C-alpha cells in the first residue's frame, strides 16, 4: 500500500472508530423480522392448517362421549390410542405444513432477491452476507420448529379444554381424559421431537436447499432434487447399493431416531423415553451439523460473489 492510501486509511479509520457498531443480535433480529415480512406463509400456513383442523375437530366433538365410553372398555394398554389420535393428527398436520413451508421458503430465500434485483438494495446496507444467510437458515431450522410447537400447543390445549367441557356437560369421565393424555408430558415430548428431529436432524437438508437457492440460476426445486436423485441412481447402477438414498431417506423420514427409544410409538407417546445423551453423542448428529455448516458457508460465499440474475 502506498503512503497516500495509508494516510487515508488512518484518517478514515479515526472516523470509523466513531461509527457505532450495532450489536450482532440486533442485526439478526431485524433480519429475521424482514424474512417474516417477506414470507408471511411462515406463520400464515401453520395458522391456517391449525384453523382448518380445529373446525374439523369441532364438527366431530359430539362423538367424544361415545369414544370415551368405548375406550373405557378397552385393555388399559390400548386405551390411550383412540383418545390421543386427534392430538397426534393435529401435531402431524402442523409438522407437515412446517416442512412444506420450510422447503419452499429455503428454495426461494437466496434466489428471490437475485431474481427481483433487490439484492442491490440489501447489499447497500451495512449487514454482512453471513448475518443474512444465518438469519435465513434460522427460519426453517429454528423458528419453524418453535412456531410449530407454539401453535400445536395452543391448538391441543384448546382441544383438551373443549373436550373437557363437552365431557362435563355429557357426564363423561374428564379425569380419565386428562390421565390418558398426560398433556404436559405430551407437550414436552412434542417440543423435544421438534427441536431434535425437525431442527437438528433435518438441518443439512435445509442447508442444501439454501445453498441451491443461492447458486441455481433458475428452477431451484429441480436443482435441489435432481442431483441427489442422480447420485442415488448412479450408486444403484454402479455398486448395486442404495446407501446414499437410505441416508437421505433417514434424514428426511426417520432422522433423529437416536433422540428417543421405544420404536413403534409416535414421539409424543408418554411412554417414549427421551435419550438426549445418546442423541448428543451420536456421530450422525454432528456430521449432519458439520454438513449444514459447510452448505451455509458456501451459501455465504455465493451471496458475496453473485449479482442478480
Amino acid at each position, binding site marked *: 500500500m502506498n503512503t497516500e492510501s495509508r494516510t487515508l486509511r*488512518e484518517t478514515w479509520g479515526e*472516523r470509523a472508530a466513531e461509527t457505532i457498531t450495532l450489536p450482532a443480535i440486533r*442485526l439478526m433480529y*431485524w433480519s429475521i423480522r424482514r424474512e417474516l*415480512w*417477506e414470507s408471511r406463509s411462515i406463520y400464515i400456513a401453520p395458522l391456517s392448517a391449525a384453523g382448518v383442523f380445529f373446525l374439523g375437530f369441532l364438527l366431530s366433538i359430539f362423538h367424544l362421549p361415545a369414544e370415551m365410553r368405548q375406550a373405557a372398555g378397552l385393555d388399559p394398554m390400548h386405551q390411550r390410542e383412540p383418545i390421543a389420535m386427534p392430538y397426534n393428527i393435529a401435531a402431524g398436520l402442523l409438522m407437515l405444513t412446517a416442512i412444506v413451508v420450510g422447503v419452499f421458503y429455503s428454495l426461494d430465500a437466496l434466489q428471490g432477491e437475485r431474481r*427481483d434485483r433487490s439484492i442491490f438494495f440489501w447489499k*447497500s446496507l*451495512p449487514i454482512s452476507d453471513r448475518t443474512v444467510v444465518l438469519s435465513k437458515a434460522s427460519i426453517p431450522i429454528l423458528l419453524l420448529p418453535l412456531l410449530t410447537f407454539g401453535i400445536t400447543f395452543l391448538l391441543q390445549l384448546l382441544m383438551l379444554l373443549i373436550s373437557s367441557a363437552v365431557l362435563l356437560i355429557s357426564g363423561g369421565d374428564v379425569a380419565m381424559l386428562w390421565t390418558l393424555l398426560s398433556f404436559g408430558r405430551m407437550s414436552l415430548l412434542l417440543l423435544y421431537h421438534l427441536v431434535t428431529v425437525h431442527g437438528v436432524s433435518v438441518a443439512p437438508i435445509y442447508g442444501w436447499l439454501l445453498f441451491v437457492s443461492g447458486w441455481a440460476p433458475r428452477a431451484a426445486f429441480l436443482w435441489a432434487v435432481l442431483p441427489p436423485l442422480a447420485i442415488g441412481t448412479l450408486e444403484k447402477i454402479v455398486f448395486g447399493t442404495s446407501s446414499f438414498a437410505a441416508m437421505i431417506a433417514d434424514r428426511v423420514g426417520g432422522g433423529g431416531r437416536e433422540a428417543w427409544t421405544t420404536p413403534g410409538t409416535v414421539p409424543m407417546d408418554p411412554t417414549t423415553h427421551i435419550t438426549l445423551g445418546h442423541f448428543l453423542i451420536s456421530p450422525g448428529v454432528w456430521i449432519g451439523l458439520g454438513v449444514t455448516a459447510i452448505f451455509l458457508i458456501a451459501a455465504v460465499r455465493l451471496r458475496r460473489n453473485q*449479482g442478480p440474475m
Partner: protein
Amino acid sequence: MPVITAHGLRKRFGNTVALDGIDLRIEEGRIVGLIGPNGAGKTTALHAIMGLIPYEGELNVLGRDPWQERDQLVRDVSFIADVAVLPRWIRVSQVLDYIAGVHARFDPSKAEAFLARTAIRRESRVKELSKGMIAQLHLALAMAIDARLLVLDEPTLGLDILFRKQFYDSLLNDYFDGGRTIVVTTNQVDEIQDVLTDLMFIHRGRIVFECSMEAFDARFWEVKVHAEGTAAARALKPIHERQALGRSILLFDGTDREQLAKLGDVRRPSVADVFLAVIGNDSEGARK
C-alpha cells in the same frame, strides 16, 4: 482529501472487458458525473466502488478496500442502483423500520420529513407505488443516511421530467453539503449539467475525459462559422465539426474566445455537445 482513488482498475466478464484500467481520483465535496454510452462500464465501475463485485487493480473508497470490507464501507456510503431495486413486497413503514434497525447512521425523521412532502403513504407496498414515487422513496431513504459518499446509478431512469427535476433539486437543497461527495451516472447529461462540479466521460472501460465544470466553462467554445471563415477556423484545430442548416459548427478546446468571435457566432457548448465530440473522436481513433 480523495474519497475514491483507483489505479489500473480492471474488470472482465468472460471475454468482455468492462473496465480496462481505470485511474481516477475523486475529492471530498465534489459532485461527479460519470457519463458514458450504454455498455461503457459506468455501472461496473460503481459496483466495484460499492464492493459488489471483485476486480483487478487498486481501488480505495474512504480508506477501505470495497471488496474486502463491503459491510463496513456501506456504513458511510449510500447507494441507489437505478429505480427498480427496492423489494416490491416491502411496505414503506417496514423499510423505514428495517433500515433504522440495521443502520446506525440512518435518521428516520429525515426520511419521514421528506416523504411527508410526497404522496407516498406509509402503509403502501412498493409494488403499489408509481415509478416516480419509488424513486422518491429511495431518495428519501438514501438522504436520511448520514453518509460521506452517495453513489447514484441512473437514479432517474424512466422518470418524467418533473420527477427528474425534483430529484436533483432535493439532492442539492436537502442533502448536499461540502462534507459529502456524490458520484452519479446518467444518460440525461444536459439535465444535470448545473448540478455537477466535475465531469468524467467513460468509454469502452476507460476514462477518456476528465474536467471540472469551472474548467469546462472556460475551455470549450462552439462556433457557428461564417462561410468565408471556415478554412481559418479549421486551422485552429477544432476537436469536432458538424453541419447544421448549411453552416459548420466547430467545437474548440482551449482556444481563446476573442479569436473565435471573429470567425462566427460563439456560444458555450453543452456537456452533451462535448460528450458527443469526445466519444466520437475516441471511437474513430479506435477504428484507425
